[in-house]
């Protein structure tokens, strides 16, 4: 009995400690949200609580500033993710289901690029993209992002496709299915969850990317991505904090909505992926 009581106390202490940590973790978000409804005077006078009047106009002005950045980010991230899924899925399927000369050599070649850090390629890649006259266009970000993002995608998806029982493919082939059909009717449905979570991961990376868009897209304000847009708040003198925080909240919404509704896929995908890779 006393042992049970002890366990109960342990559990309560545990919950109390973790609750405190959750409060600390979420304090920034709480602060940003309440501040997004205030003007500078209200933030200075009463920083940690809501105070009336609520300044909804902050959101109107932030929305006007951010909507263009958001559009750019959505185009770049969308194209990158679609590109990775298409190019990566084809390669992963070929590696998983075909035997051909030099297969391992080619696979190791791709694998080796995991070792090449972005930092090594940063300067020459900038020069290359400059020579291709891509600076200031979406492709300057999309193409290198696909090239980098596909590597882990191929490695992880290959191992998942290889995990599908061989008999499924055999019976389909005996029934006269073409490889395109086998891919769309067997491999794709069975690895949908993995593909989905890998795509979410690629989305997160591309949406958060900062350095490369800074180099290639920051010259023209109408091409800036959302991270660059937020970064430019840094330099404004006499800043109005309310609209800035409203902008932060708006910029966070797409990711939070996308991931909260797909949390299960995301967690299972990212964890199995990280350990396999």
């Amino acid at each position, binding site marked *: 009995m006393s042992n049970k009581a002890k366990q109960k106390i342990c559990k309560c202490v545990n919950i109390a400690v973790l609750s405190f940590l959750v409060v600390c973790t979420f304090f920034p978000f709480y602060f940003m949200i309440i501040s997004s409804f205030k003007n*500078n005077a209200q933030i200075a006078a009463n920083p940690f609580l809501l105070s009336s009047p609520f300044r909804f106009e902050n959101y109107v002005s932030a929305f006007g500033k951010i909507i263009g950045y958001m559009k750019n980010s959505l185009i770049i991230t969308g194209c990158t993710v679609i590109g990775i899924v298409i190019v990566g899925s084809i390669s992963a399927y070929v590696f998983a289901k075909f035997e051909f000369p030099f297969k391992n050599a080619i696979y190791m070649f791709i694998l080796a690029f995991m*070792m*090449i850090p972005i930092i090594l390629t940063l300067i*020459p*890649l900038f020069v290359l993209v400059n020579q291709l006259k891509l600076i200031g266009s979406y492709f300057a970000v999309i193409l290198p992002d696909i090239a980098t993002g596909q590597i882990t995608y191929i490695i992880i998806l290959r191992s998942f496709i290889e995990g599908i029982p061989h008999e499924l493919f055999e019976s389909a082939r005996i029934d006269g299915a073409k490889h395109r059909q086998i891919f769309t009717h067997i491999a794709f449905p069975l690895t949908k969850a993995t593909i989905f979570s890998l795509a979410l991961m690629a989305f997160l990376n591309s949406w958060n990317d900062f350095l490369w868009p800074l180099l290639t897209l920051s010259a023209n304000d109408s091409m800036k991505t959302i991270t660059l847009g937020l970064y430019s708040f840094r330099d404004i003198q006499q800043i109005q904090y309310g609209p800035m925080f409203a902008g932060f909240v708006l910029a966070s919404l797409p990711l939070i909505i996308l991931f909260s509704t797909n949390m299960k896929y995301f967690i299972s995908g990212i964890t199995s992926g990280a350990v396999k890779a």
Partner: protein
Amino acid sequence: MKTKKEGLMYKVYKAKWCYIALLPSLILLGMFKLYPAVIGIFRSLCSWKSKNYFSPVFAGLINYKRLFTDFEFWKSFGVLLVFIITGFITTFIICLPFTYLVYKLEGSRFGKFFQRAFVIPMMVPGMVTLMFWRFFYEYQEGILNTILRFIGKEEWIHIWLADNNLTLPALLFIGFPFVAGFSFLILLSGFLNLDASLAEAAKLDGANAWKRFFTIDLPLVIPQIKVLSVLGMINGIQAFNTQMVMTDGKYNTMVPGLYMYQTAFKKGNYGYASAMSVMLFVIILIITIMQQKYIKNVD
């Protein structure tokens, strides 16, 4: 001999669709990864500045000689080491035990709640988090100084992001309380995959909670710990968003990546910056190889 060669050619011909299917992947890699990497290594041996941007001149090892005597560069490695060690401490001494506590609540409604609560912050864009912390340390309206004024410790108020001694600790504190995020997710998945029967057996043997944690549960998440330490190292060496957004590398917060970036894109000395990036690449490579070897030994 001849037939064997023909055989290979025939096999290659027969499998031509495989190669064609792999072409998009390989072209992208060749163009945006391999070519820049090779050029980067070659250009690190050149005198290549913004004034001769289109015509780099081969200069041998001059950039590397200069690099070895560049005090700023090696000092930035010291700062980087502080960041990486702090990262390891926050991951394995702070995040790991609390992740274990969350795992211990698995099965109750609190467990689900905490699991989600510590994953959600991952989805807030990194730039938003950094800009929040900039505001946190702001001199006039900043949260930290507001709190200090509120509790009457006026003498503790500082210009947190422009102080040779205090700015580095201030940057290290970013991310407090260090539980939520990617490491949490990876470690949690490790704990959730634990074999429950082992824990039951230990309980029957009368092992207390501490002993159970160190002798049974902790060894089973060693794969996750390895993954996180490799990633922490490789990503840590390259990361400089925090320093760039908060201080631009001033006030003793310069790290090698940012130094390279500024040498290339602010000062326009591309050749010298390329030598730095090659140096960082070599260091990353050595660490990766050593860790692979070490990991194999442990297994």
